[in-house]
């Protein structure tokens, strides 16, 4: 009887520890490979005006039904939330590449999941290109 109890106790302890480790591992877990995800989420634009880029990102997100939560001109980021019976959160960043180009990256979270499907990002960049009158190029 005592033996069974000891086995049960150690089993419970082991399971609770492994559960803990599992959740901590999830903090940095992604499903797609980093390189693939970066290419899905990023585009290059032929402009050097980051302020204009960020302002256009804000206007585009508003057109898409987002409310802008936060923006930082120094860091070059914009965060926004869309509520439509679901919660969609995005962060868009813009950083210069060379003197004439800008890399724009958008990452989205739908309810409690990272969006890893290419199509929504494609739609976002199509809308952004239209607003900028510039073509979005794939990241090489």
């Amino acid at each position: 009887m005592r033996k069974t109890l000891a086995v049960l106790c150690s089993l419970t302890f082991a399971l609770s520890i492994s559960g803990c480790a599992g959740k901590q591992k999830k903090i940095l877990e992604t499903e797609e490979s980093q390189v693939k995800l970066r290419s899905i989420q990023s585009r290059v634009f032929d402009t050097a005006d980051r302020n204009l880029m960020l302002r256009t990102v804000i206007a585009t997100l508003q057109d898409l039904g987002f409310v802008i939560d936060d923006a930082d001109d120094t860091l070059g980021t914009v965060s926004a939330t869309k509520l439509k019976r679901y919660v969609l959160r995005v962060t868009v960043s813009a950083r210069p590449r060379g003197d004439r180009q800008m890399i724009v990256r958008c990452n989205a979270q739908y309810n409690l999941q990272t969006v890893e499907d290419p199509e929504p990002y494609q739609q976002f960049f199509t809308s952004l290109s239209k607003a900028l009158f510039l073509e979005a190029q794939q990241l090489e």
Partner: protein
Amino acid sequence: MLLPKALRVSLIISFLSFSLGACQHRIPKDALGLSPESLRDRQLQSRIFETNDEKMLLTASAALLQDLGFTIDESEVALGLIHSARERDVTDKGEVVGKVILGVLLGAPPTWDTRQRVVASVVTKPIDEKRIAVRVTFQHMVWNNQNQVTKLEQINDPEIYQEFFAKLSKSVFLTAHEI
């Protein structure tokens, strides 16, 4: 052949939770695409002011949001943004009485709305050297007495936007033009 009742109920519940869970995981196809209502919403939410003083417009907007009981959470003048929120008790006594009676009749725990959080975000964007567009967007979340979210949406009531811009015009002594 009939399954025990408990087993049937648990099967139905697990099937329902599975199917609902499956729905939640997929992002709707148009979530990041322009909708047919985009242009209408933009017109509803924007006004153009004949000024080149963006800081003055942002200051007036911040003051107006404070007048309306919002607290400013974030702002970035370099990008023309103010983000604010307001939380209020929305318990309606009539609704509570109705829901309690209904709950007793149906034998289910009654639920009613108790709390609302409204988020307002003001964005200014220079159009040319003499004009600046101001766009405000509101969204709200409502919770019930069980702390469950019952509403999660953008507010698209034209009156709210008209009232906001009428007050903003007054506070900046400028006429706001519709786009």
